[in-house]
């Protein structure tokens, strides 16, 4: 088993775990954590891709690394906004839940 394959499997595992959590866990904070996990999995895959680029003789393909940095910044911003909203929701409603009180007509 090569290192690339190991990382590949680890990344995929993280993604699968995250998607599962995202679907079934009702609490928005858990969903947010799941999204971060999902992001980590994806970034790990970027790392794998970068390693494969290294086969061309470079120390590592720099493009995916640059992408990961940007991706982390974006994911961080999303997390920050989400936490801000969560706190506000908790402040306003007393509970932080994104399930609608059935307001269907």
């Amino acid at each position, binding site marked *: 088993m090569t290192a690339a394959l190991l990382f590949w499997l680890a990344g995929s595992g993280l993604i699968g775990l995250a998607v599962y959590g995202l679907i079934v866990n009702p609490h928005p904070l858990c969903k947010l954590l799941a999204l971060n996990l999902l992001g980590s999995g994806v970034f790990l895959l970027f790392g794998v891709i970068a390693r494969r680029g290294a086969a061309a003789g470079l120390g590592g393909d720099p493009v995916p690394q640059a*992408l990961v940095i940007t991706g982390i910044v974006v994911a961080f911003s*999303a997390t920050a906004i989400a936490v801000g909203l969560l706190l506000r*929701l908790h402040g306003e409603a007393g509970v932080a839940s994104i399930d609608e009180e059935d307001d269907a007509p």
Partner: protein
Amino acid sequence: MPLEALPVTDSTAGGALLVLAIVMPAVALVALLGLGGRGARTIVAAALLVQLLVAARVALLVAGTQAPLVYVVGGFHPPLGITLRADGISALMMVVSAVILAAAAAFAWKDFAQPRGKPEARLSLIFWSALLAMTSALNLLFTSTDLFNLYVGLELLTFAAIPVVAIKGGAETVRAALRYLLFAVFGSMLYLLGIVLIYGAYGTLATAEIAAHVTPNAATLAAAGFVTVGLLAKTALFPFHLWLPPAHAGAPAAGSAVLSALVVKGSLFLLMRLWFDTFPTLRAPDDMQLLALLGALAVIIGSITALRQQRLKLLVAYSTVAQIGYMFFVFTLVPTDAGDVIAGTAWTGAWLQVVAHAFAKAGMFLAAGLVAEILGHDRIRELGGLSAKAPLVVLAFAISGLSLMGLPPSGGFSAKFMLLVAALAEGHWLWAIVIIAGGVLAGAYVFGVLSRMMAAPAAGVELATVGRGRQLIALGLALVALLMGLLPLSPIAFLTIGRLP
């Protein structure tokens, strides 16, 4: 990963305008945050006016040269650098978004004012910065040719939309914003996953180079799947619309107009860009039936749900869910052999639907906002007396509704007619029936609202007065949708300028 050398495209004359369109709103945003709220409106007004001029200039250049505008950022060519490129549809969407953003800003002018002598309100600063950020993000989405760059644009657009949703405060809107954010980030993570796979397979993220080399191997198919569902989540195609109705109904009127008219179109634009220009050989119209099916469900279920709403803004929001559905027929209806009349008809029909819906829905949301302001509520049962009090608002609603119902003359009719022609010419009877049924249902919900508006006012109801100017803005947007109906019902050449064959 050998890449055979593609003909290197250099920047064309006027290509720098594209950079301006993206950077200028961002610079204005920085200025806004630096200078504080006092001058906010002036900065936004100036930025959006420049934006209008830039977009118009881009469209004229594209139409004049019959070729796309290209700008190679920093002179670095792909695969390392990023190329901005505006073809016919980019130029079209730049103009549409510049006009609607400017109209929305004008509409919100008084609501988010920063009067002298009063403490600075954070809300108005947030609104105006969000508007500028959206402008920049939309232009990036419309012109970038780099998949990761597009991802950044997509996220920027979502992050700009969230505060607009939450701006009114209250548990309901904050919850709506949170739902929106979480689902949208889920979508963009899936998109990002797709990008990883594409980069792994092709070693580039430039759309043109991918298009030249794309082969239907496992990685590419999986990537296309991830990217597509990621964008579906952001476009709120049924059944991924869970966030849309509360978010669009909860935002202030000008914000709802921009969200419904433009923001959902950003990810849709990218989806069309991907399937038609990035993986053109991958798209088998028959496999795309799945998207058409979801579109059909959106049309029918969205319309029926709209019909049963009791609040006007929710009705309009569900109408967006339905109208988005029509746009997804294009993936099935454009045949793969290019140059076909049917292809041109379906393609034009889909873009007319995008644009007509943008104007009609913006007009309708602004009208709905005025209704809420006049009555102090937006309960559909109690809309009586509006036609006597504010006939222009009712007219704006009616004209927008005409386009949504697809009655001629209106852009909505032209779009629907051309989609129908394409659907029936190719034997897609079911989709044709859905398109027609959607029109009948839209007629029912639009007319239901109109007849309530015409009714006599309930006794003892105090109606507020709203300014003539804002009524005219809503009416103006609706009229654009109406006047689009005067275009001849044939493929529009502008929409195919610069498209990859």
